């Protein structure tokens, strides 16, 4: 099992950075927000996240970048509750604060990769795809959605990357009809020696992990948990693993799928 190089993240200490929204525009039901970290020298790895302040809200919101270009960090935010609704309405020029970089990151496994995601889970996966391509891996992306609403999202995230992209819609309105896990199953059944990476709703990651494990392929997921501190101090983000209870913000968010007690 490749728990290689970067799996346990770096001990690089996080800090609290002033950030500014320098661009924000809609991608259908999602919002692409670009944050400037000025010259902080900060480097994110795919899978790491930041904990972003939201005006009028007490707690910060964890978000996993879709990419970094110099001091600019790209986020995809899907409005969910009041905090993310507020975030997507903020105008460029808004100044926020971000704890960053937080958490561990996806390992770059040997061999080719399949990325299976949905919604804003595509953000860290696109970041990872770029990294994997830089390492010379072939990358297949399976993106699932209820309908065609993520067309803009996948174009924006994967458009410039040399990946094999397949879109799955449950209602058949775009790409293949059905769930991306079905395609994952086909792929692995055909003997592909790939590493599986999945970020999306719990049910998707669980299903992807089950398929990967059934075919004995390594798989990594990014576990979502309600977070307060984001740094390991409040113990709110408990996840159960085979080596005991862990905390997604500090021991994760990336976990080997076989380690997780689903």
């Amino acid at each position, binding site marked *: 099992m490749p728990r290689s190089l970067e799996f346990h993240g770096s001990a690089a200490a996080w800090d609290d950075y002033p950030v500014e929204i320098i661009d924000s525009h809609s991608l259908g039901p999602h919002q692409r927000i670009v944050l400037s970290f000025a010259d902080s020298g900060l480097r994110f790895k795919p899978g790491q996240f930041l904990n972003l302040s939201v005006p009028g809200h007490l707690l910060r919101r964890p978000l996993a970048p879709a990419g970094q270009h110099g001091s600019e960090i790209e986020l995809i935010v899907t409005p969910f509750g009041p905090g993310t609704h507020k975030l997507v309405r903020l105008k460029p020029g808004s100044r926020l604060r971000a704890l960053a970089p937080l958490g561990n990151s996806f390992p770059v496994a040997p061999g080719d990769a399949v990325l299976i995601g949905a919604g804003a889970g595509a953000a860290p996966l696109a970041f990872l795809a770029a990294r994997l391509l830089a390492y010379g891996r072939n990358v297949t992306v399976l993106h699932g959605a209820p309908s065609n609403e993520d067309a803009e999202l996948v174009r924006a995230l994967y458009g410039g990357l040399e990946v094999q992209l397949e879109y799955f819609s449950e209602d058949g309105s775009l790409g293949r009809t059905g769930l991306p896990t079905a395609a994952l199953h086909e792929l692995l059944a055909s003997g592909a020696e790939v590493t599986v990476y999945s970020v999306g709703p719990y049910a998707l990651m669980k299903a992807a992990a089950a398929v990967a494990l059934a075919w004995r392929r390594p798989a990594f997921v990014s576990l979502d948990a309600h977070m307060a501190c*984001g740094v390991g*101090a409040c113990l*709110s983000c408990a996840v159960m693993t085979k080596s005991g209870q862990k905390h997604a913000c500090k021991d994760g968010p990336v976990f080997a799928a076989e380690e997780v007690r689903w």
Partner: protein
Amino acid sequence: MNRLEVEFLGIRFPNPVVTASGTFNYGLEYAHLYPLSALGAITTKGTSLEPIAGAPTPRITETPMGMLNAIGLENKGVEAYLQHELPWLKEQGARVIVNVFGDRAGDFAEVARRVSPYANLIEVNLSCPNVHGGRLPFAHDPQAAAEVVRRVKDATERPVLAKLSPNGPILPVAEALEAAGVDGFSLINTLLGMRMDLDKKRPILGNASGGLSGPAIKPVAVRLVYELYRHTDRPILGMGGVASAADALELALAGASLVAVGTATFSNPYAPYKVIKGLDEYLSEREETWRDWIGAAHTPN
């Protein structure tokens, strides 16, 4: 001149700002931001005899200017902390308040006994369920609470603070604890609350209800510290929604000698440090000291 210095139960604190139990773990996560010895003290995450896995997730959710938590007292058990965290904290030169709890009075005492070499103060968390005492938690059962304090006092030489809960009347409990020999009080723990998930038509928290903390509860904290101060001659560690020097001063006026910063650390990890700086500036400008403010709202006009 150190305007912030304060003596509390015979211990000299360079400033009155401590971290609140459960919001700073054992300090490791924040130690790279500022020296932990610069804080008045670190209050550790509540510690029990045996490890506790805690409550089902979600364990936290946000509310208007507050948050609910139902961590379920997760901790690694006293033995683990004696191996690593407590010796490490002492090495940092930090003053340490160890927050202890248990299922029964004897468990509280045993944890207190074991952590004493590393603790400047023991804080007894009475808000935990009194598993063997019917439906009331210790905090609302004066006799059970007093028994806890008696046993803890017998088990340690360290001064013992009883942490009171705002979910019921505090004066009858405080009186019973005084009779049991408590050295001081710490308050407030969280208020019980709940938030609903409209999509699932269920409470959001895995544990259904949780403890409300943050700025929303500050007025309740100020009032309870004020009320307790009138009824006790023992010193008070006040907390509840403190996020600024002004908040800390409100609690001081009400009667707190030390103040804890809790939820504010989640909003801003520098919060405890910022409160210290803010107090120093505010008091320097006025040529006053922190001690001048303790209980000052009670002095006759």
